[in-house]
């Protein structure tokens, strides 16, 4: 499916992104541990991927022609789990098992636990290489599917990632699209204070990538960028998505302290209310 997006579809996706954010808050409160800021910040992009961009079949997760979505920064897996559940990979109810003993929804995602999870990830910097390996193998066999790799910004401090960027550029892996969650935060503070990443665009360009930059909360812009990446034949493409960590919950937005903690139950109630009322703009039927 290769299609540009219409206003009506964008509105539907925005409603879905809000529902997915609500699921995120509920599952993180239930888990009692986990990452909050990153998953909220990537909710719009994961919604666009699972409900518009990806060629996939939730009832047949191993379909050989599916697009591959590799999640390199595995710690934001709650957003992947929530999007997958809403897309029909497994019941929404199962989201409550996040991080619990015996769950398929491991704290960091594991390929063999949950169909549709593509790769085991968490340790940073090693997703792009796997995505590039899949893209390389697929091209050897003339496969048409595309490979997407979602990465954090701070993992661009890891050497392995740049080795993979060099490999993908050298091999002109045009069936590979990287997506960088440029939210500027990491555990120890702001990325530009901890170990600066800028100029990120020219770094990728120097590694022979086609680079696009979008507002990561503008679904239309992101979808258009993905469409453009499909039209680039000589290079892999990276979309630097500028996102707000914790997007959708005013108390969490921009605050790096929310990187690796979940909302407490009472906070969860307030956050859900904020999402349901679109920040107080409308009345919630749950009140």
């Amino acid at each position, binding site marked *: 499916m290769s299609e540009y997006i219409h206003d009506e579809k964008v509105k539907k996706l925005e409603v879905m992104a809000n529902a997915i954010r609500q699921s995120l808050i509920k599952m993180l409160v239930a888990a009692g541990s986990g990452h909050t800021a990153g998953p909220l910040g990537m909710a719009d992009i994961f919604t666009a991927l699972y409900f518009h961009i990806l060629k996939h079949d939730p009832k047949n997760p191993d379909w050989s022609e599916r697009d591959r979505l590799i999640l390199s920064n595995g710690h934001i897996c709650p957003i992947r789990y929530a999007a997958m559940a809403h897309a029909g990979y497994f019941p929404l109810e199962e989201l409550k098992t996040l991080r619990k003993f015996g769950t398929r929804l491991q704290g960091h995602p594991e390929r063999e636990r949950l169909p549709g999870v593509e790769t085991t990830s968490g340790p940073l910097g090693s997703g792009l290489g796997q995505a590039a390996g899949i893209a390389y193998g697929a091209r050897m066999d003339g496969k048409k599917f595309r490979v997407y790799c979602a990465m954090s910004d701070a993992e661009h401090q890891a050497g*392995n990632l740049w*080795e*993979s960027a060099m490999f993908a550029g050298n091999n002109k892996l045009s069936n590979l699209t990287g997506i960088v969650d440029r939210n500027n935060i990491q555990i120890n503070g702001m990325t530009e204070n901890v170990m600066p990443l800028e100029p990120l665009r020219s770094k990728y360009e120097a590694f022979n990538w086609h680079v696009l930059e979008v507002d990561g909360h503008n679904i239309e812009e992101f979808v258009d960028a993905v469409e453009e990446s499909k039209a680039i034949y000589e290079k892999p493409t990276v979309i630097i998505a500028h996102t707000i960590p914790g997007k959708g919950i005013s108390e969490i937005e921009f605050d790096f302290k929310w990187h690796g903690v979940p909302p407490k139950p009472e906070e969860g109630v307030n956050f859900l209310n904020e999402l349901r009322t679109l920040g107080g703009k409308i009345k919630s039927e749950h009140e």
Partner: protein
Amino acid sequence: MNKEAYLIKNLTDSNIEKAPTRDGYGKGLVDAGEKDDCVVVLCADLAESTRSHWFKEKFPQRYIELGVAEQNMATIAAGLANYGKIPFISSYAVFSPGRNNEQIRTTISLNNVPVKIAGAHAGISVGPDGATHQALEDIALMRVQPNMTVLVPCDAIEARKATLAAVFCDGPVYLRFGREKSPVFTTNKTPFKIGKAVVFRKGKDVTIAGCGVLLYNALIAAEELSKEGIEAEVINSHTIKPLDIETILNSVKKTGAVVTVEEHQIAGGFGSAVSEVLSQYFPAPQEFIGVRDHFGESGEPDELIKAFGMGVLNIKEAVRRVIKRKA
């Protein structure tokens, strides 16, 4: 000698054919490429010395160059295997599985994808290059990873068989190879099955269990000990994981003592694996031939093997010691 092992007839012949086990890897890769179209070979700027260039010449479309980037080589291979290929990654063991150990752990072992890791230039017999390039901890690194199979072939012929066998082993496999020419003492008829140790020499007084090229020294030691009236049983335990517990236990129950032989740190290596089994099922005196918590250094392979206590004389001494310890 155990006739069923089909070893060469004149073990002690001074003109014995010698070849490095990495040659067996190179030949095995070509065999593998012919047998299965899914086989691809990756290399990190060491095509000739890992012998992966033989595959490259035959199947250029299935050879992937990584440059000096072993971490990336592991992750690219994980992706290729995830998609459906059977990748072999070739480098020196100090770099792969050394430098890229975490990538192997997460993206290959835990991910459980069938990447075959070939660690060349393992052991102190790398020689003049010195400690930086002499991998002495790779068996330990690999055998502690769940899902991983660990193979240490004893000569070039067995290395070729092990390489091909790795293709048909579902999960990740580590293959260990040496740089230096070593005696070729097995034959095409010598049995090789992953997980099945082979009794090379039958004996009743002591078990010498080993892996890799030092098995030749073990056999020579056993022949010489025979003249002193000590009959050693020599076991080729080419598969460190899964270890052939049955063959080792049966032998030690008969002999009552064991000497383990490996070109590796004693800590965490093959001897440790044997010790873990014996202490649980049949406690027996054990002596360890291997490197004792030291880095290697430059020198000629033979002199290093002797200097670090892994020569024929050292094995014989260990046998005499362990026999004295028998209850």
